[in-house]
């Protein structure tokens, strides 16, 4: 009996351990008003959680216990407890929150309010809006430098990356990029900022110290019309060597060598690919394919698409723990 109990305890522990080891991807479904929960070991959707209207940008708390969700049409941020899969809180965000970034110290969420040309600063400890920063028309992309000192916002109709000092909360510089900048990503060393331009079809690599554009990466896929190549999400591996760029209706993820800016590969994924995230070990990359209602799982080292996994309607954002 004792032995049996010991065995079952052991089994339970093993089960827990493997559950803890398995990576879980959370995907916001813009039209489905849900979050899909994907077990990346089983490679399948294991739960679908109803949330507020039009969930788009999502991000994990640094302790991986909470998922913050921009529920755009509900005009607030919802907080999903990842253990219970219940929405446990909703936080003020200003109107139409689309994308946000969590400060590296976890204290603030910086939120792009697409409708009113503001970036809202949300103090997470107090749960209140502590500041609003006027930016260009249709703010979208958000990034924070590795040292938490510089906040970036891209404005889609103004076509700029705004550099904001996180201490004074004032814009210190603006860099003009190509049409409709959607996403901004720092290299891990904080020296470069990569900004995608959806309509311009380019990624601008900006030197953070001088705010000069070092290079513009262009894309060309054989048999794909140039005007359907629309860069949106950008992710750079933690070793700073490889960048992945989601090309929207071109249905490809471009693989770029960070050092040479050379586009080395185009991976065929689902339709209208927008956002991406790595697993914590950076071995897998997951892309959201809005039109085909699925995500693609990519092997980062081999640069191969492993699998498509069905999720809800119009998948938009993804975050993996």
């Amino acid at each position, binding site marked *: 009996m004792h032995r049996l109990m010991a065995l079952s305890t052991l089994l339970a522990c093993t089960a827990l351990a493997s559950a803890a080891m398995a990576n879980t991807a959370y995907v916001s479904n813009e039209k489905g008003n849900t979050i899909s929960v994907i077990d990346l070991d089983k490679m399948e959707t294991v739960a679908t959680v109803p949330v507020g209207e039009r969930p788009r940008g999502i991000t994990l708390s640094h302790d991986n216990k909470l998922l913050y969700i921009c529920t755009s049409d509900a005009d607030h941020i919802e907080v999903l407890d990842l253990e219970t899969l219940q929405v446990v809180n909703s936080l003020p965000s200003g109107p*139409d929150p689309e994308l946000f970034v969590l400060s590296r110290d976890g204290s603030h969420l910086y939120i792009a309010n*697409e*409708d009113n*040309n503001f970036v809202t600063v949300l103090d997470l400890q107090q749960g209140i809006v502590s500041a609003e920063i006027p930016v*260009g*028309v*249709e703010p979208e992309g958000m990034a924070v430098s590795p040292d938490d000192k510089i906040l970036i916002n891209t*404005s*889609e*109709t*103004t*076509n*700029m990356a*705004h550099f904001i000092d996180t201490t004074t909360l004032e*814009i210190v*510089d*603006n*860099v*003009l*990029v*190509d*049409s*409709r900048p959607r996403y901004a990503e720092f290299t891990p060393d904080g020296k470069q900022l990569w900004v995608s331009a*959806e*309509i*311009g*079809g*380019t990624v601008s690599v900006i030197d953070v110290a*001088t*705010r*000069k*554009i070092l290079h*513009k990466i*262009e894309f060309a896929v054989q048999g794909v*019309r140039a*005007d*359907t190549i*629309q860069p949106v999400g950008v992710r750079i591996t933690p070793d700073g060597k490889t960048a992945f760029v989601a090309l929207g*209706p071109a249905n490809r993820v471009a693989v770029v060598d960070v050092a040479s800016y050379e586009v080395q590969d185009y991976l065929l994924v689902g339709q209208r690919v927008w956002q991406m995230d790595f697993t914590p070990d950076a071995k897998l990359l997951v892309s959201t394919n809005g039109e085909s209602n699925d995500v693609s799982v990519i092997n980062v080292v081999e640069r191969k698409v492993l699998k498509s996994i069905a999720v809800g309607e119009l998948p938009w954002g993804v975050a993996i723990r």
Partner: protein
Amino acid sequence: MSQGRSARILGILAAGVAALTFAFGQAAVAQSTPLHVPIVYLKETIEEPLPLSLVEPVATDKGLAGVKLAIGDNNTTGKFLKQEFELVEKTIPAGGDLKAAAAEMSAAGQKLVIADLTGPRLTEFADLPDMKDAVIFNIRAEDDGLRAADCRANILHTIPSRAMKADALGQWLASKQWMRWVLVYGVNDGDRAFADAIRRTAKRYRAEIVEERAYEWKAGSRRTDTGEQQVRDQMTQLTQRLPDHDVVIVADESEVFGDYLPYRNWDPRPVVGTSGLVPTSWHRSQEQWGGTQLQRRFMRDFNRWMLERDYAAWEAVRSIGEAVTRTTSADAPTLHEYIMSDTFELAAFKGKPLTYRKWDQQLRQPILLATPLMLVSVSPQEGFLHERTPLDSLGYDEPDSTCRLN
């Protein structure tokens, strides 16, 4: 993008850095004077047909509201670049003095014009010597002639032509294999012109117009209080004993009878054209490609839906804004050259960069197909290919056009 463009952007950036570097030096005075960009909105007050439906609100600032929204957008961007866009409103009465208006603008150095004018008045205005080096955006006149024999070097068109709209509709019907058309048109010039565009489209896509009918009754009151039965009888009469057909295409730009046709026609066939399924460059149901943001900004400021002329006006003012941002100039010929260059592109919530056709200065753009409350499709349709861009499958292409501004 091209090297030239990268160089230009780097130039702008360099200028920005220089401005910062010298912010406390002597150069500060010169640099801190904002670049002033006046944009004239010119409107001739002529009576316009009211929407046939009484539930459709009447917009009295159609076009102007779009200009105002885009000026605001330009200024939000401009504040980061020290550029100020100013709206100069000029309204003349019906048949008023365009020459005097042009002289006034010229004297004030105002050479960027958003023209809310009908076709003949637009060319009359553009031909005035005072407007010779101006850039005039046509936001209203859909006349195909303005993109052909009557085209002008100083006119750019953001409103699509009738031919573009007819082709957009025709592509959809062809893709549905609805190839037998009945064409019903009203008595006004615009109705006849749209009917002509439909005939051209039918030829292009080998559809058959099985019969044409004209609707000769005059416009009455919008109210149909107790008149519902009479309307029904009129529409039934208009459409009875037609040969076999797939759709009824109505050409009634002045809203005399078009919205009365659906469900009242003799045969159970859908109505398309100026009523029913309508080709348009903008629609309240358009939420794709970030369109929701534009719709919300507009609704918040003007308390009504954005209409096609507002959108054309927004595109025009944003074209100027984009050119000013990239060239840091307010000089009309410089802006005109940039707008027509290969580096220009406008993001306008249509999912792809918009550019101007070099031969007739028409803005290329996808055309929406919508019913009153829903977006149905967006043309060009799949498979309507073109060597340059599928967008050039809509309207008069370079080889068919008699206009050669390039």
